[in-house]
């Protein structure tokens, strides 16, 4: 989406939200369904605008829904909360200077990724765990008593079997993958997912996050998911990777509920991916704010520049 479209959409959205917030304040408390249903789609909203449009809910916390077995049901459409001054897509967002505690090997792997590996997501390879947990894109959870699936924008997914706490399979019984091999179990009302058997950034096409931080074949990820109330989802994640990181590190994040009746759409990443060689390696320049940036911040001019401006 162009910046022009974005700014127009933003203006339209801001106006809509202002109007909505006036109306909604009076209405929210009237019924639970009004408080949880999906917001009305803006006129002519494109799929991308639609994906990020938030549910505005300012009412009192409503209880999290429960599964048939009484455990919290984490199902729903979840939109990441962007913390001010903290980078998105960076697993080092909670670290000093937004830098992860890389070992020497880890630094080499990071430099390798920046100089040799086109962003795996840009060439439509499964994003993997834990990368999707720091993604800026909303995602969906479909949760039943014995299965937990996170469904991503790319029409890919990660699944886990929820059962009693049990050890991960032995290393030699695991085939390395992007989403890894996992076990999921409840600790009170927190769903814990332990993952291992992941690919290695030094010789495979996997990154730890959008910024090209590395992950290794020794990585173990422990995710702790909870839904404190109807409208909020939170994750406390620990990444243990002695090959690339000096110490285990934590990553925490919150998501807002997108509203009943909303979910991920369909996206065929490979549809027209014939220009792979034009995609350079690495995540691009990462600024002191820890962000890699997805484009230019300056708004585009109102009238498009002539073809001369592009130097053709």
């Amino acid at each position, binding site marked *: 989406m162009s910046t022009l479209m974005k700014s127009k959409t933003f203006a339209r959205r801001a106006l809509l939200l202002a109007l909505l917030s006036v109306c909604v304040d009076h209405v929210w408390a009237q019924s639970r369904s009004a408080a949880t249903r999906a917001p009305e789609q803006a006129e002519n909203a494109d*799929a991308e605008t639609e994906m990020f449009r938030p549910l505005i809910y300012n009412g009192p916390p409503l209880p999290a829904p429960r599964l*048939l077995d009484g455990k919290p*049901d984490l*199902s729903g459409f979840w939109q990441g909360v962007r913390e001010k001054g903290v980078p998105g897509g960076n697993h080092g967002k909670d670290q000093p200077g937004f830098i992860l505690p890389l070992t020497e090997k880890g630094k080499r792997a990071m430099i390798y990724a920046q100089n040799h590996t086109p962003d795996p997501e840009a*060439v*439509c*390879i*499964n994003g993997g765990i834990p990368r999707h947990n720091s993604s800026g894109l909303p995602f*969906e959870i*479909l*949760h*039943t008593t*014995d*299965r937990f*699936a996170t*469904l991503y924008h790319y*029409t*890919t*997914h990660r*699944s886990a*079997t929820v059962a009693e706490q049990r050890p991960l399979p032995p290393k030699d019984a695991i*085939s*390395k*993958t*992007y*989403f890894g091999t996992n076990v999921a179990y409840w600790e009170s009302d927190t769903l814990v997912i332990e993952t291992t058997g992941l690919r290695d950034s030094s*010789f495979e096409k996997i990154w730890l996050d959008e910024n090209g931080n590395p992950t290794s074949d020794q990585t173990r990820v422990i995710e702790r998911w909870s839904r404190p109330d109807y409208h909020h989802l939170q994750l406390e994640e620990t990444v243990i990777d002695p090959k690339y990181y000096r110490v285990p590190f934590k990553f925490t994040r919150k998501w807002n509920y997108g509203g*009943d*009746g909303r*979910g*991920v*759409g*369909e996206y*065929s*990443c*490979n*549809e027209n*991916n*014939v220009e*792979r*060689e034009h995609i350079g390696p690495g995540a691009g320049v990462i600024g002191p704010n820890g962000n890699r940036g997805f484009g230019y911040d300056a708004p585009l001019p109102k009238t498009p520049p002539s073809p001369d401006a592009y130097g053709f």
Partner: protein
Amino acid sequence: MSYRIKPRHMAAGLVLSAVAATGSAQYRDEAKPDGITTQSIAIWLGTDYTGKPVATPRDAKGKPILNGYWKLLHEAGKPDGNLAKDLPQFQLPYTAAGKAALAANEKVVDPEARCIITGIPRALTAVLPFEIQHNGVRFATFHQLGWHRLAWLDGRKTPVDPDPRYSGNGIGQWDGDTLVIRSQGYKDSADGRVWADDNANPISSEAVVVERWSRPDYHHLNLEFTLTDPKYYSKPVKYARHFVLAPEGERLKEFSCEWNTYWVSTHLEPGPGRIGADGNRYFGPDKQIVPDWPLGSVEDDGRGTGYWLYRKNKPKPSDLPPKPEAE
């Protein structure tokens, strides 16, 4: 579509051709049974449960729960991956436009081999196992090539002008103990990116698919669907299948469909391959009805493309030398 072929790809291709010509190919030799087919059949196909029937699980509202990892009960003599499976002589009632669309599909590389999402109904005609997970509002089928399809069970109305999708826009509701999902708003084969089944049959933007899912007991799942597509078919096409719950512990295997590979950019041929009078395109010699495991593998068992079709005297992806990226 243009592929950029690098000199190193050409060189590797030449080496492969030379290897093939000298008869010392690494790829499967039709004359030497190797057990791969037997192993693949065990991985992909279901074996019927013949024990005492166990009751269908039900949710709080008393509706059946269809969740599980389901494997096909293959019908002897019936071609999988063919929309015409249940029709006389396996002949579909094409319109003139349908015939033309089929001919056009046969000139493009299989969309699955290009790692484009496998839509509906194609994913439902595939020989591969799949998983269902649903709750009261959402229904998902998870497929072996790494994609999923989603439908709504929340009682919403049919959208007026939905985005065209490979899986259509599905809305389900219960008819007694049968879950009925009606999908419309499909992408059209005219775009060159979607087939209705493995045999390159077409689907149009006018198509409506009505799936009827039921679980008569714990171990069995039935599917009947009707494709109504007046643009490409002169009458509705009916299709029915039976699945068995996979043994405890079996799951979909992770598969990252990566079409930007040496293999895809240098070796793919258009179309579904030759389809016999028995309606089957087959996956290998000796009328192999399932693809090999690893699936269309390029490097190891989790990466590949949906191009596992064995072609006589052609190597298949898993036979290729190690990744050229490592050169």
